[in-house]
């Protein structure tokens, strides 16, 4: 039987533009993926358009990289500004940042499970935008189907509620304007704290009574997916949600796990490099740390197939996301697979929502949320945090209060990177290799693996140029 070559473009129910090229062949009697390329198809050049702007604008501009994790970009940029200024936010400023950021995590996780991921497993309503869907491998009986769909509708209300409580201190969402170097502009008025707590209780109940049981129900119906989509088993977290004003302790710590086993290793940002061997950038700037990174386009270039650079840690590919965070924190160590990613994300939502309850209770009404600072003339700093879909870093050099250089490595760059100079596949590519495909015309298994890492191509900054239709 000939090898089947197929492209899925667009991959839908993600944020942004993603194309996946696959080759499917029978190996040992099982039809499966034997080759794969993951390709982002949008380049906006945020790093370049930031150059020359006032440094203080970075949280506002970088928020617009992504409408699903804008607050994470605002957070990373604000942390880099804090470091530039040599200040820490006061306690209430730190807590309000965490509450708005946490609300956006909950929004993203609920959105991901119900709206983006679930349609790979259940039958949606027989009308657009749920048709024409693939009818492969649906294992949900009509009772469970009705329950999932009812919760899908509830999820839309609850994810909206997440943005509503976040906006109490974020002004508006997506794209909060309140994150600034030194803290936030909002102050915790007593009535807003109460409103936040009321909404959070509602969301917490949904996570505990709907989201977690639904994730477990899905896991029992599709338990073969604990053996699909493992990838390298290398997990990386920068850490997030500062528990003290200097950020010495966090709800999620930083660390690494190698091949899904052993003790958690330390993580040092200096060991991060970006490989461009298979990307359309000059090899003269290969394997640089982002603090000294360069982006020099080169196209055409032999062997290149993507505009995504390939981030590596000490030369190795790593997966980032809720599973990595929960593993490093010691909260979830069942395994690495499609279903483990889905379950870890659900339990992470519960952990964050409970932490947010205690943070809100720590707030002193009307307490100061901002530490005064002035931009230093020159500084090179970083802001490391986590977005809902994984580790996020901003590296920036400021000169005379203006942005001289800005480099961003998003979680999706880690997860959906291309091959590197050692021909190591990107983490999602690796996870897709060997995935069984029952019907190459309806490769629903491919979508399940892709969706398990919750790709956000809006965050990944680069694009592939391939065959184009003649005008």
């Amino acid at each position, binding site marked *: 039987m000939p090898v089947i070559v197929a*492209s899925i*473009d*667009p991959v*839908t*129910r993600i*944020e*942004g*533009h993603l194309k996946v090229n696959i080759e499917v062949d029978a190996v040992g009697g099982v039809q499966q993926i034997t080759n794969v390329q993951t390709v982002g*198809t*949008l*380049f*906006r*050049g945020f790093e*370049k*358009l930031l*150059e*020359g*702007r006032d440094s203080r*604008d970075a949280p*506002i*501009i970088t928020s*617009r*990289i992504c409408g699903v994790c804008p607050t994470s970009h605002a957070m990373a940029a604000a942390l880099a500004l804090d470091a530039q200024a040599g200040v820490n936010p006061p306690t209430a400023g730190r807590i309000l940042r965490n509450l708005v950021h946490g609300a956006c995590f909950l929004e993203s996780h609920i*959105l991901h499970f119900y709206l983006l991921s679930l349609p790979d497993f259940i039958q*949606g*309503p027989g*009308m*657009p*935008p*749920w*048709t*024409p*869907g*693939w009818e492969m491998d649906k294992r949900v009986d009509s009772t469970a189907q009705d329950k999932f769909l009812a919760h*899908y*509708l509830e999820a*839309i209300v609850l*994810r*909206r509620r997440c943005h*509503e409580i*976040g906006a*109490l*201190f974020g*002004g*508006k969402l*997506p*794209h909060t*304007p309140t994150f600034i170097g030194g803290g936030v*502009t909002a*102050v915790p008025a007593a*009535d807003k704290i109460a*409103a936040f707590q009321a909404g959070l209780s509602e969301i917490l109940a949904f996570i505990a009574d709907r989201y977690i049981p639904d994730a477990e129900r899905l896991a029992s119906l599709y338990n073969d997916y604990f053996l699909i989509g493992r990838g390298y088993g290398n997990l990386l977290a920068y850490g997030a949600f500062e528990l003290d004003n200097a950020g010495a302790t966090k709800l999620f710590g930083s660390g690494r796990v190698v091949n899904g086993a052993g003790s958690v290793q330390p993580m040092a940002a200096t060991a991060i490099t970006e490989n461009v061997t298979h990307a359309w950038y000059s090899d003269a700037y290969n394997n640089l740390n982002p603090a000294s990174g360069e982006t020099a386009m080169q196209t055409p270039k032999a062997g290149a197939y993507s505009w995504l650079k390939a981030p590596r840690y000490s030369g190795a590919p790593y997966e980032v996301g809720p599973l990595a965070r929960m593993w490093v924190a010691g909260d979830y160590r069942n395994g690495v697979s499609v279903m483990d990613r889905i379950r870890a994300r659900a339990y992470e939502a519960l952990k964050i929502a409970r932490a947010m309850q205690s943070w809100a209770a720590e707030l002193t009404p009307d307490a100061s949320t*901002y530490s*005064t600072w002035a931009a230093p003339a020159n500084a090179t700093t970083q802001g490391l945090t986590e977005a809902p879909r994984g580790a996020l870093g901003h590296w920036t050099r400021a000169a005379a209060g203006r942005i001289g250089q800005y480099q961003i490595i998003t979680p999706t760059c880690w997860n959906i990177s291309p091959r590197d100079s050692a021909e190591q596949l990107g983490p999602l590519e690796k996870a897709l290799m060997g995935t069984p495909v029952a019907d190459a015309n309806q490769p629903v298994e491919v979508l399940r693996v892709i969706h398990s890492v919750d790709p956000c191509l*809006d965050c990944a900054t680069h*694009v592939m140029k*391939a*065959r*184009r*239709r003649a005008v």
Partner: protein
Amino acid sequence: MAITRRSFMKYCGLAAGALGLDSTGLGLLQKALANPLAPSVIWLQGAACAGCSVSLLNRISDAGPATVTEVLTGAINLVYHTTLMTPAGDPAVAELRRVYENGSYVLVLEGGVPTAAGGATCIAHSLHGEETTFQQAVQEMTARALATVCVGTCSSFGGIPASGSNPTSVVGVSQLTGRPTINISGCPANPDWVVWAVVQLLTGTPVDLDSDGRPTALYGTNLAGAVAPATLHDKCPRNRDVNPNAPTAATSFDNCNGRCLLDLGCRGPVVKSRCDGCWNIKAADPTDPPSERWRNWCVGANAPCQGCVEKTFPGPQSFFEFYEG
């Protein structure tokens, strides 16, 4: 999922004020929606962040059909939206092409149009291995659309991807095509304004536009007795000309709560929108205590208005210096 066009109508009745519909408008909408040949809606994303789509999901009403899903299932035949739809790859694109060939659709565009490298920095989709750039898709699909709604500042005017050195030569849709668009600007676009625009189109109601292609009903409302459309500053409760009891203006973020933010960069004096108290609202019974009535906006959280609904957004000037306009 027993959601019907009738339940959407009930929703529109309850939310008629928010939708800007009087009883005549409601009747027209009812008639339009009763028509099984009501136009399909195609939503394409270009140089975008998906923020306007996420914002649409924040569409609210706690009475009747409450959510955007119910708007979609009950009112709008949304055949293509990459973030929401179940189909992927060729089957999805084939359906898009079918609707395009038939014409008579409402086109919603999110994101700017990159024109560098022949549009190659944004591929909209492929069919049978052939790629279509967003630029090509916009040129083609605007030509046969009943109407084109630009959702957000990027598709309206270029927005942030067109700022600074504009690395991918992004332009707004009408700048590219020369064809008229209805611009619902904002970063992101407010979901109520987007639904308002789509409802006007479905009811065949003429929409009066300002010189930037924005509905005057949303962006250019005159206050009673005024000759020019009100700016946010003209309506701001922190403006002492509006509210004599307001405290003195802020000079620093360490003392800005409740104060006018002009010196900290607020662009309110040049911004015409109805942003005040209309973001991420938690709809609730009016008898609820104040803690249950949430009406947010940037200034309400002491953040200077960034002017994100304006053609000049973001501009080269810092968001944190007195805005010279």
